[in-house]
């Protein structure tokens, strides 16, 4: 069976993601750190679906993350939900908040849209802060359990060990990664890119662009909600900062520094920033200043982000015997 170039790129990218996921706990000092990277990689990937593929710069990502954290933690604490139902609640909470914020914010476009996502993000923070009897307010939500993997009440696997929990998160990450690539290469994904490139044209061709944008929001919110729920499980705790604007900014910065429009870039961005934070936060608490500098530098000089930079470097070092043009022609001929 012959494989088309698209599917081989497909496999290469996924293979790289699998390799990274397998290598991380070996190279990194602790599986907990590796887990944190994957959780934020999920969030960055979700933000990438909006920014990189649909062209929507959303400051609401922290809201979906926080909603996923709080809701999954609350149903585990108060109603003793198991692992998968709790994760599902986190996903639904992220999707629902994303639906509400997305549907309201896309009533305006351009900068007004971005401003609305930021203002709604502030609003969500005040909601969490005001409802302190539910969310724990400034103190956060304490004593979040980490239930075992169980099916129909039969306990299959305890996630208490950091390495086992890493494995669990890694499987979920890879599943989402593959699913996200499927979505991007589907007609739905192509429509999102068409909206990013020229919304008027996409709408003139007959697409209901609003509906597509809301769907992109819901998808992004669901993945971010999952990331938030996993983060609550990792920390056994939901800090108020999960829903702060700073979390939205962090997720966005990871996406952009890693490289917009490339899912591996999101993994790279989350990895480098979580690592940088881990190394620097003890030495120099003001390290986020570097993030500000890096963000400016990437926007001014390295639009493709770290991943784009790596690809450029690779292309410069290894001159492939076949230039890229014949490849695309072959693909067109095959189709």
């Amino acid at each position, binding site marked *: 069976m012959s494989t088309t170039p698209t599917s081989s790129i497909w496999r290469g990218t996924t293979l790289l993601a699998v390799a990274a996921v397998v290598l991380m706990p070996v190279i990194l000092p602790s599986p907990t750190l590796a887990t944190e990277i994957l959780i934020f990689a999920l969030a960055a990937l979700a933000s990438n679906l909006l920014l990189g593929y649909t*062209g929507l*710069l959303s400051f609401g990502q922290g809201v979906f993350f926080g909603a996923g954290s709080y809701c999954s933690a609350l149903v585990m604490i108060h109603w003793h939900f198991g692992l998968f139902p709790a994760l599902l609640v986190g996903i639904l909470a992220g999707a629902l908040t994303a639906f509400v914020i997305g549907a*309201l914010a896309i*009533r*305006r476009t*351009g*900068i*007004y849209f*971005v*401003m*609305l996502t*930021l*203002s*709604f*993000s*502030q*609003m969500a923070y*005040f*909601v969490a802060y*005001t409802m302190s009897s539910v969310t724990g307010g400034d103190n956060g939500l304490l004593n979040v359990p980490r239930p075992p993997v169980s099916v129909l009440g039969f306990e299959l696997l305890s996630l208490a060990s950091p390495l086992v929990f890493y494995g669990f998160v890694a499987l979920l990450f890879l599943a989402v990664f593959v699913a996200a690539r499927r979505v991007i290469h589907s007609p739905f994904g192509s429509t999102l890119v068409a909206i990013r490139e020229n919304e008027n044209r996409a709408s003139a061709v007959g697409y209901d662009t609003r509906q597509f944008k809301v769907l992109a929001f819901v998808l992004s919110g669901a993945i971010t909600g999952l990331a938030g729920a996993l983060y609550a499980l990792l920390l056994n705790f939901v800090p108020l900062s999960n829903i702060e*604007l*700073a979390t939205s*900014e962090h997720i*966005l910065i990871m996406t*952009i520094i890693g490289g917009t429009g490339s899912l591996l870039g999101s993994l790279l961005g989350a990895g480098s920033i979580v690592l940088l934070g881990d190394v620097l936060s003890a030495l120099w608490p*003001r390290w*986020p*200043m570097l*993030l*500000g*500098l*890096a*963000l*400016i530098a990437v*926007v*001014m000089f390295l639009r493709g982000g770290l991943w784009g930079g790596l690809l450029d470097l690779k292309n410069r070092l290894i001159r492939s015997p076949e230039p890229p043009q014949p490849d695309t022609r072959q693909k067109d001929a095959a189709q």
Partner: protein
Amino acid sequence: MLNVYLFQVLNGLGLGMIYFLISVGLTIIFGLLNFVNFAHGAFFLLGSYLCYTVVTLTGNFWLSLFVAPLGVALLAWITEQVLIKRAYHLPHTFQILITLGMALIIREASIMIWGPIGKSVPTPAGLDGVFRLGSFAYPEYRLFMIVFAAVIGLLLWFLLERTRFGALVRAGSEDTETVSLLGTNIFKLFSLTFALGVGLAGVAGVLSAPIRGAHPFLGEEVLGIAFVVVVIGGMGSFTGALVGGLLVGLVQSLMTTIWPQGASLMIYGAMAAVIMLRPYGLFGRS
């Protein structure tokens, strides 16, 4: 009972005038330069902190009311020369990200200089009394704040509507190229306008310091509120900033009497309502 509401209405006017000063700066910059400044809240914060420093060093609030906004405007002018002017031609998304980076740098630098814990600024001497009218009493400083902000607003209106500089700014926001072809150094005009707009956030920061103090995360809060004002009133409109600012200030302040914890929440609720009923703002046309 009536006095309680009068008290809150005055509080709302004061807050509203602060919001107006912040938003009108944001709006002027967007109007002429077509530039989105997400570091606006951070510059406001810097105004509050500079006020704190001047007041601690000299004990003179009046000096800080003069020096701090100038300092903020000067810093804005320098960043414009170094960075911002290279970003005017970029899409808004990139401008947002660049200024987001700036906001992060300013916030972290503020924490380095002034520490992570908030600072409070004493009510200026001479205005620490209470203004009385019959049975009604109101803090003098808050009255001064309303009047001062109104004077700044009038001066700004005069500057924009009645001077050559204002005419150039307005003409430039219509058609930059023509203004430049007619022999105006458009880049100088851009720098001055950016410094002016950011300086207004600095003034607002100083005025609010004796009431709210200075806290590292005030910048984000203020930015969120300025966006609410601008979404309601429309970007690039002086009147929109004034009406939007006052509306948000009054809603926030009147809600404090009914539901203190939810006052901040109601601002955003009001914004959501406007978006649902009039997606293009109170004055906007689609």
